[in-house]
């Protein structure tokens, strides 16, 4: 097996005329890491991938792979494997010929080439389908051919551009696990683009959240989910309630906040420089699954259920507190034998003191 490369992006920028696609992006990717580029459409994540692959030239900044500057290196000399969203399988070649393509370009001898093709097809569980043409395969099989084709020559880096986007949901869930296991098994440094936050949380070693071409946050999935550094990240990952308001008073470890015509206590961040002042603006992020609904409790706010979305394992309620225009999304697990709330029910909406994630100051 060839050596895996780390990747180092330094102050990478890409402009199309006046339009900013990527701005001042610096990023270090460890050898063997599975890194996700996550963001809404137009965030520049595909552009970053295409810059790494060499399909686009950066306006400024450098890209280093395994310590070597590859910024000006043409695509074919970068030794990368790329899986396109459309798969881009060669329709005029069989599966085996598709997989053999990269080896042929590397002038690998016939015997070794055939052995590697057979091994790789076995690895992605397509052995026996080598003589088929891509159009004779299902979507999931095509996806695996695209993957086999990209890894057969053991590239130093694997780039995946929304490879699961064209699969139906059940298959996508299966392929997530398979892709992750395969990546582990061959230990290849992998960068994958997705707009699906669930996908990135379940598969990534680290997630990079991009917003308008800039890096919002980077970290392991659990950290990005539980400790978002901005309300954008908080809102992008998971079901969240965003409340804009102001600080009323600060008293030690907590402070009183008014938002959406409600007054409540939130925890104050420990960092010295983030200490809130009375009168300051605040953005409060409340995860839907951290909110509680109860009929008996007196704590929290009285509100009425306005909409119910049954999701099987859980139920999503839309609840409006009295005297507030804010509709709260509340995600509750469905316990056995417990009746669902229904529209019009008067309930108490409550959350624990450490649930709100607050960003003080203008955003």
């Amino acid at each position, binding site marked *: 097996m060839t050596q895996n490369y780390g990747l180092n992006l330094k102050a990478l920028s890409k402009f199309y005329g006046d339009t900013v696609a990527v701005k001042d992006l610096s990023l270090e990717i460890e050898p063997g890491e599975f890194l996700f580029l996550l963001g809404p459409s137009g965030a520049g994540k595909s552009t970053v991938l295409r810059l790494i*692959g060499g*399909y686009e030239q950066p306006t400024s900044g450098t890209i280093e792979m395994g310590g070597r500057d590859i910024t000006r290196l*043409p*695509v*074919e000399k970068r*030794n*990368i*494997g*790329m899986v*396109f*969203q*459309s798969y*881009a399988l*060669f*329709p*005029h*070649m*069989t599966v*085996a*010929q598709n997989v053999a*393509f*990269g080896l042929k*370009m*590397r002038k690998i001898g016939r015997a070794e080439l*055939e*052995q590697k*093709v*057979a*091994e790789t*097809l*076995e690895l992605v569980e397509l*052995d*026996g389908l*080598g*003589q088929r043409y891509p159009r004779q395969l299902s979507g999931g099989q095509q996806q695996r051919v695209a993957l086999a*084709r*990209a890894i057969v*020559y053991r590239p130093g880096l694997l780039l995946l551009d929304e490879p699961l986007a064209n699969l139906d949901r059940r298959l996508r869930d299966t392929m997530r696990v398979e892709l992750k296991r395969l990546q582990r098994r061959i230990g290849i440094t992998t960068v994958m683009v997705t707009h699906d936050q669930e996908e990135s949380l379940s598969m990534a070693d680290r997630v990079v959240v991009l917003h308008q071409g800039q890096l919002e946050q980077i970290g392991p999935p659990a950290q990005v989910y539980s400790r978002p550094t901005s309300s954008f990240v908080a809102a992008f990952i998971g079901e969240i309630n965003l409340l804009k308001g102001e600080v009323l008073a600060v008293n030690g470890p907590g402070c009183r906040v008014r938002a959406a015509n409600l007054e409540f206590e939130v925890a104050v961040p420990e960092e010295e420089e983030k200490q809130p002042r009375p009168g300051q603006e605040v953005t409060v992020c409340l995860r839907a699954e951290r909110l509680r609904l109860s009929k008996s409790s007196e704590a929290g706010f009285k509100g009425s259920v306005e909409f119910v979305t049954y999701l099987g394992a859980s139920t999503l309620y839309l609840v409006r507190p009295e005297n507030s225009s804010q509709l709260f999304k509340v995600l509750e697990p469905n316990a056995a034998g417990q009746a669902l709330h229904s529209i019009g029910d008067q309930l108490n909406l409550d959350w624990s003191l450490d649930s709100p994630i607050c960003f003080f100051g203008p955003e």
Partner: protein
Amino acid sequence: MTIENVATNPTVAAKAQVKKAGPKRWGWLFLLAPSMLFLLVFFVMPLLWLIRLSLYDRPGSASKGGSRFYDPDSFTFKQYQELLTDPFYGKIILGTLQQAAIITVVVMVLAYPCAILIHRFGPRFKTGSLLLVMLPKLSNLLVLTYGLLVMFSNSGVINQVLLGLGIIREPLPMFANLFAVVVAETILIAPYPILILVSLFEGLDPALEQAARGMGAGPLQAFYETTFRLTLPGALAGAGISFIWGFGAYIGPVVMGNPDNYTTAVEVYNITFENNNWPLGAALAISNVVVVLLLLVGFGLGQNIINQSAKARAKAGEGHYRARSKSNL
């Protein structure tokens, strides 16, 4: 009858299906009727009449009245005999084939890169350039070729300018020769393969070439392995169309050529209307159609062979892969 009954009784179910499918299957034929009728009246019937005409004899001096073009009582293969025995006609057909081949090569060499260029243009340029490509087809044929004549003749614009600048001493022979015929016919024929090729390129996933690059192919090789190989059948079809058009060339050779460049189409006209030999003209016209049909059949067979051998090669290669993967286990 319940629904289960229909489902479990195969004949009933089948009958129901046939009844349902009946009007749907044949209904579309009515849509074809007007065009079929048109073809029948204005193409098939004249063609059949042409065949009959080619089997008449010329009106001899002995013939009493009748048509002045042919002897209505005759039935003879004399005309075809003449076409086969007089080397003049064989030479004309061969010459026409050769000229069509040259035109096809020139057309395709120009059309392929031109189509790539149009395909890669932005949407605004694309519309404009497609319009430019179609321009020769939108203008009058004769006006167009006479326009070329004005450009190319010895006293034409190009020669006058070059002479005036002292670049040449004698006018370049750009008129009444093969060059002039090929240029004229290229202008008339090239739009067809260009349009075919542009639509082919539009249908290709641009990621194909990028994928090839990613796997280690240089720009030219990536182009060859994906775009070129995928558009080759379409390009061959375009070449086939160009060849047939080139074989049937008339205006170009008449206006821009000399008698050496006359095609069978021109000779059909000459024999029929200048020499007043209608049966022989008809026979040559029919021979022309036969040659084109033979070419089409040959072309189809050739493409089939290419496709089959590609499939065979893929299968042979695959046999190898399978054998190996088994031996690895």
